[in-house]
């Protein structure tokens, strides 16, 4: 086993037993379960869950991720004093953090679907996209969290940064797009809005799922634009690729900081 694997094994043990992660999984489970009990059909549950996933997953990933990296700081130093290279240690830490969060999300949202829905064929596509969006958002926002917590030695700055990134992506960004659209309503803005949407992981998650439904055009300007441009398989691949890039870029930056950092 490689050094990364050895570290990962114990990190997984540690994070999977963390109360925050267990509570997170339980919360998602209860919520999804409740939506089934009150709402009924699987498709409606997926749509209701969408907004929860788009808000909650980035928030939990960013905050828990940042706090975890700060909390593990001293032990990271002890590990760095062992015969291990920094890149292996970094990879072990990132995966040890993001995989349990991803597993908690999968279990919390996935289990109720297995319990309640006698999944009709039509539901598989949307459900799969919901899970994919949630997983990718987990990896994106934990990568951002690791970057912030590695870059800022000051815990308050790192946590503040994580909240700011979350606010910006989940709430402020769409407002800004709407403002731009209304200010420049005289101009053809589709391409610009498209480009802006591609830069925000939360919007990408929304688009990914809304494209699964015919209601996409009703779900705001972003959805309409994407319906037209990306209502194809190629569009879906582009969205997925953009999300992967949004996880890889902060991660690569964090690794760079981690390698050069003085602990």
């Amino acid at each position, binding site marked *: 086993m490689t050094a990364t694997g050895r570290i990962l094994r114990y990190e997984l043990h540690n994070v999977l037993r963390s109360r925050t992660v267990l509570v997170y999984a339980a919360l998602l489970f209860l919520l999804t379960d409740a939506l089934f009990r009150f709402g009924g059909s699987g498709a409606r549950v997926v749509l209701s869950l969408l907004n929860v996933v788009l808000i909650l997953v980035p928030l939990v990933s960013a905050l828990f991720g940042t706090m975890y990296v700060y909390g593990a700081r001293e032990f990271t130093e002890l590990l*760095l004093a062992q015969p291990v290279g920094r890149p292996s240690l970094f990879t072990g830490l990132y995966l040890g953090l993001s995989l349990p969060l991803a597993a908690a999300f999968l279990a919390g949202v996935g289990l109720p679907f297995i319990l309640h829905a006698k999944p009709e064929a039509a539901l598989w596509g949307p459900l799969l996209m919901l899970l994919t969006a949630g997983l990718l958002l987990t990896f994106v926002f934990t990568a951002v969290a690791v970057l912030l917590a590695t870059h800022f030695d000051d815990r308050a700055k790192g946590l503040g940064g994580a909240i700011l990134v979350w606010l910006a992506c989940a709430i402020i960004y769409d407002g800004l797009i709407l403002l731009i659209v209304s200010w420049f309503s005289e101009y053809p803005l589709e391409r610009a809005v498209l480009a802006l949407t591609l830069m925000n992981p939360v919007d990408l998650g929304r688009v990914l799922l809304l494209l699964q439904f015919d209601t996409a055009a009703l779900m705001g300007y972003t959805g309409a634009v994407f319906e037209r441009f990306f209502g194809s398989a190629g569009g879906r691949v582009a969205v997925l690729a953009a999300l992967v890039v949004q996880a890889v870029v902060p991660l690569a930056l964090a690794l760079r900081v981690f390698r050069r950092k003085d602990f």
Partner: protein
Amino acid sequence: MNTALEIHGLGKRFGRVVALDGLDLTIGRGRVTALVGPNAAGKSTLIRAILGLVHPDTGSLVLDGEALGRDWRYRGRIGYMPQAAHFPDNLTPREVVAMLRDLRGPGAGTDEDLLEWFARSGAMDRPVRGLSGGTRQKLNAAIAFLFRPALLILDEPTAGLDPVASSRLKDKIRTVRAQGATVLLSSHLIGEIEELADDLIFLVEGRIRYAGGLAELKAQTGERSVERAMAALLGGGRE
């Protein structure tokens, strides 16, 4: 004197603060070298540079005749006991030890003496989260000695230990020294230094104020205790 670690022109700045100002040092093999100095003297930066936690701006380190560079394998010969022990909350000491064993690989030597001592506290299978500071510090010590390191770096090792545990650890330091290990000991406790150390490195503001034998220090300053000798050095520097 047989040298374990040579330090040449080691310099490190953090922004405008000069932490290490071109240190030249040798640390004798099989000896206990105490590292002392006021707060922010650069002790911690020096230790971290040896461990590869801090990247020095200038200078070089030579361990057992091998210049330290990008290759991290040399850390397999070092045992490190940080000042404050923090382990993952939800792991048990048994798991923490297993993790470090896995990382060191099968080639690493083992010395379970202190680990058995720790295990007697009955804490091996309790999550670290619930352990007292003293118990964690014992685990910290057990881990530092576990792989029979040729060089031990101990940062305030007895801080937070009760007198019994503290004596046990000091005995262990004497034992490994007798077995040929080199020990670098950072400490504020003059009594501990007089009890254990052969040599002393006295850092002030990133520079060496004194480096050499403890006995020579007393002779040089004409003082009978290390504490007074150090005070004499500091006073002498201010004149």
